[in-house]
Each structure stands twice: as C-alpha cells, then as structure tokens.
C-alpha cells in the first residue's frame, strides 16, 4: 500500500520554501509510493486542528512547518503515536514520533556569496527579504560571509518587506537598491530578479531555480532539495522504522539537499573555480559554513 501523506502549509504552495516540499511529495506520489494531500494557507490558530484532523484520518506521515506552532504541534504528535510527523522546526526532534527538518542551505548560500563578491563591480550588493526570521537570516548571513570572504570591500543593503507575497513591493525595494548603486541583488523574494532583469544587472537565486525565467540575470543560486529528506522519511515510515530524528542534515550539500549553481557566462572564471573548490571542501567536511540566525543589517 502507498504511504498516506498529508502536508500542512501556513502559506500558499507557491511560496518558494513550501514549493520544495510540495515538489518532493508530488514526485513521490508520481512514483506511486505515497498518496498525497495538503492544506495550504492554514492560519496559525487552525494549525493544531488540521494536524489532528489528518491524524484522525489515519495519515501515516504528516509533513509541515511547526515554526510558530511549536508547542501545539509537539503536543498533538505525542497524542497520535501511530502517525509520523516530520515538521520544519528550529528545535530538536521529540519522542516518539516528532522528526524535524529545516532548510539548511547556508552552504550553497555561502558559495553564491563568493561568486557575487567576486563579480560585483560597484562593491554594493542589495538584499531583499520577506521577514527577518532565522530561516531567512541564516541564508543571508552565509551569503554575506561568502561575499566578504572573497571581497572584503563589499557592502550590503538589506531590506525586509514584511510580506511573503508582495512582488511589486519587493521589486520597488530592489529598484531603490539599484539607485543606491547595487549591481547584484540577492533575490530572497519574487520580484527582485524582475527588477534586476529590467535594469540589466545580476541577481542571486535562493531556494528555487529561476534561471529559466530570467536568462542572463541569475548569476548564481543556492537551491534547496527536499527529496533526500522526504524520500528517507517515506522509506522509514514504509518500513515501520520512523525515528524522531533531525532530518536537517539531509538538506546539506553532502546529502544533495542543497546545491549550488552558477551561470559561468556571467561570473569570472577564477571565482567559479574558487567556489567549486570550496564546494568540494564543504562536501568533504573540510569547511564548515557558520550558522548565524541573527537579523542581517545594511553595512553602508
């Protein structure tokens, strides 16, 4: 029998972050390993009820984000030991059935930072984010660290637009940064790459690969792949071996959960080489990218 999987998202499935989970689950469904259903845009106050409803429906695995509902999510999981829960969380796993994951793609973010730092001419990089939450901050900080590592003179402009979904606003923030001299934009939100494309400058992708939509604009991207995480969890549930583990590491580059792409026609060859070399070091465990969850600030 296919494993019954339900996902609970607090945002619409188009949100970059969630879309990666959705994609991995859909792929598993295509392969016939699971049946997949989801609820999107679930309000904070409803989250617990939705978890219980899925558990009551006899789901084998519930995937979701526990970030703002940490306590309730853990309590529900404890009450339904028959169901496996795999939740996005900043905290650790919990017995008997609460496993956690997170988008640990600070490694490729660091690498894309290296490319950006070496490519910028104005030495100003603009970064537009949604909200300053750890999941976002972590990637931005790693990116900034990578850029400064190769180019100590680079300065950053940081703005949060306080919305996951307001591409026009993100675009305006990006334009403002271009006005201030930024020649590379870190596109945490939809809308930023559009501004870069319109003004003929470069953008850095994040989580999803948008280079097809903006040919010639996306310099480099840090991509997140949920397949290693999801596939392991499904396998564990299928073989009755689900453990309340931290699935976070499966987002690391070494497991293929994070990857780094660069448009070599846009970046200096030596920068690409340096980044590729660093990638190998990371995969081989020779280099550790710092995890820094504090809110990044402009440095100009």
């Amino acid at each position, binding site marked *: 029998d296919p494993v019954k999987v339900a996902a609970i998202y607090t945002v619409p499935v188009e949100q970059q972050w969630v879309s990666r989970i959705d994609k991995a689950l859909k792929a598993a469904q295509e392969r016939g390993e699971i049946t997949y259903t989801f609820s999107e*845009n*679930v309000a904070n*106050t409803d989250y617990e009820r939705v978890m219980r*409803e899925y558990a009551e429906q006899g789901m084998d695995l519930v995937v979701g984000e526990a970030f*703002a509902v940490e*306590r309730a999510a853990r309590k529900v999981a404890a009450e339904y030991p028959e169901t496996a829960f795999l939740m996005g969380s900043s*905290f650790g796993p919990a017995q008997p059935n609460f496993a956690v994951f997170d988008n640990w793609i600070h490694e490729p973010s660091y690498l894309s930072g290296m490319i950006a730092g070496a490519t910028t001419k104005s030495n100003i990089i603009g970064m537009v984010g949604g909200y*300053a*939450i*750890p999941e976002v901050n972590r990637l931005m900080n790693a990116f900034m660290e990578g850029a400064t590592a190769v180019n100590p003179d680079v300065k950053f402009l940081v703005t949060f637009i306080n919305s996951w979904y307001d591409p026009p606003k993100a675009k305006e923030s990006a334009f403002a940064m271009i006005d201030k001299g930024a020649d590379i934009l870190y596109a945490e939100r939809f809308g930023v790459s559009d501004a870069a494309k319109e003004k003929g400058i470069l953008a850095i992708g994040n989580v999803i690969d948008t280079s097809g939509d903006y040919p010639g604009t996306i310099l480099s991207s840090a991509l997140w792949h949920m397949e290693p995480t999801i596939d392991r969890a499904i396998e564990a549930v299928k073989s009755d071996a689900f453990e309340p583990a931290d699935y976070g590491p499966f987002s690391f580059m070494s497991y293929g959960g994070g990857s780094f792409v660069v448009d070599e026609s846009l970046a200096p060859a030596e920068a690409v080489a340096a980044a590729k070399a660093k990638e190998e070091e990371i995969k081989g465990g020779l280099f550790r990218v710092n995890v820094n969850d504090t809110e990044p600030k402009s440095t100009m």
Partner: protein
Amino acid sequence: MIRFEPRGPVAVSRTIGVSVTAAVAALVLAAIPMLFAGLSVLDAYVLMIKGAWGSMFAFTEMLTRASPLILTGLAAAVAFRAKLWNIGAEGQLYAGALAAVAVGTGLISGPSFVLVPAVIVAGALAGGLVMLVPTLLKTRLGVDEVVTTLLLNFVILLFVQMMLEGPMQDPMGMGWPQSEPILDEAALPKLMDRMRIHWGLVIALAASLGVYFLLKRTVWGFEIRAVGENAAAARHAGIPVTATFIRVGLLSGALAGLAGVGEVAGLKGYLTADLSPGFGYSGIVVAMLAGLSPIGVVFAALFIASIFVGADSMSRATGVSNYLADLIVAISLLSVLVSGLFLRFRIRLAGTRPARESAK
C-alpha cells in the same frame, strides 16, 4: 419595481422560518463551487456538519474558534450602537494579546488568582487604550474613526512584530519572532482535557451577558443608545456625548483586547504575529449578522465558526482546495445578510395590494 415596507414586531415562528430559508439558500449557493470542484454535494454537506458538530472534538474546535469571534463581535456591536465605527478590533486584539504576554510571562509572579485577573485586566486595558486614540481624535479633532481605526491595525501589527523581534522576543525561541510563553499560573484554564477549548469562551459568554445588561438596563447604556440614534438630540438633552463616545471606545477596545487575551493566554500560550486570522474583521460581520444585539452575537459567532470549521474539515476530507472553506463562509454570510431583510421588511412587487396587518 420591488418595494419594501418596514415590518413591526416579528413572530418567533417567522424568525425561525427565515433563518431556515437563509441556511437553505446558503447551502444551495455554496453547492455551485462544490459542483465546480467535482464534489458530491450531499456528501460534502454531511462532512461539513460532521466537521463542526459531529464529534466532541469537532464541537469544541468550533467553540474554540467562536470564542474570539464573540468578543470581537461584541466590540463591534457596542461601538456601532453608538455609531462609533470601530474597524480596528484586529489591532486592539493584538494590543490585548501583547499586554497579556507582557504581564503574564514573568513581569509579576504570584498564584493563579492574582495572575489570571492581572493578565485579563492588562489585555482589556491595552485594547481599550488603543481604541481611545481614534475616539479622542474623533471627539476632539473630528478625525474620521473608520480610517484611523483601520490604519492603526497596520501600525499595531507592525509594532507587535517589532516587539517580538526586539525586547519581547523569546530568548529560547531560536530567533523566531515570538514571545516568551505565558506562565502556567497566568494561563486561562482549559475547559476540557485534551481539547483546546478554554476559559476564553466563558469570558466571552459572560461579556455578552454583561454588554446586554449594560445596554438594556443601565444609564450608560441608555446614553449609548441615545447618542447612537441621534447624537444631536442626545447632546441637546444634556447627555455627555463626548464622555459617552469615550466610554464606548474604551469598552469596545477592551472587548477586542479580551479576544487577544483569550487567544494567547487560553489557546496559544505565547504570542506570534500571525495570532489572528482576521478575527477583528470577522467580528464586524458577526456583529452585523446579529443586528448589533449582544446576545445575537453569540449565535452569529457560532454560525460563522461552524461554517468555517465544518467547511474546512470537509475540504480536507474530500481533498478539495481548502480555499473552498472561505468561499462557503462568504457565500453563507451574504445569504444570511439578504434573508435578514425578510425579517425587517415585507417585500412586495409594485402594484400588488398590501395585506391588512395590525402591526405598524
């Protein structure tokens, strides 16, 4: 040409008849998107009823969702009675919640019988004070309160975010913008084991009785009604119009603030910036569905909560996009709104004879 004639007092049987008609109309209209989504309508409705009333779990969930709606509904109802158009219950709710966590997370310590009232009072006060600003701007400077209350919602929500990312952030929260958890002694007790339903419901029900009593039986209530129905005449008759507006503003804000207290101290345990899925705005709908009656607010809130929880659960059981739930709520709201007309007016086509009737 359609004409409306106001009706006099309405018989109970008619009220019930119209409510049933409204419900049927809502169900028929809501069937359209269901068919569009390829559902079997009958099954969907069975699932909806089950989802809201079909089990103790469903029922308590429905009540849990109704609790803040009763309070924000009351907040709108009192204010609208005085024609003080408070569209800011959403912001006041957050202010109440913020005050509740400010007080309830260790600012003071003590046993439950000290902390719980302290949290409640703090939340009510914060909500009231927030509403005081637009009220004073209205009475002193003549600034339209629809707009100020609406805009303050955004300001307060941003302020809450600022607090949650700054001074009030939980140091144990791994950097997430959330407050520290409310102390156990400061939390509103649960009403049932293993269920989310909490004392916020009791507070809400008590508040609705309180507001009913206030409006019906007290001098202040009399003054509120007089100011709302005709401020000029009220002022001429020596009723302190400004003072009445201020009282109403404080009360309305406090009720919305209590909704915030219930959500953090009764339900969530800590504050995040996505605490409320628009309870403040839905409160307006609840209040108007109830015809601004404080008792009616309870039933209107139960209705809205039932439709939402039921439809949401149905969408999950059938695998249809859960946006359907919001759609069904909206359709039901509009149907009930229209059917209310049949209570207040008798509707005739032009040229037809009116029935002789003794009510004037």
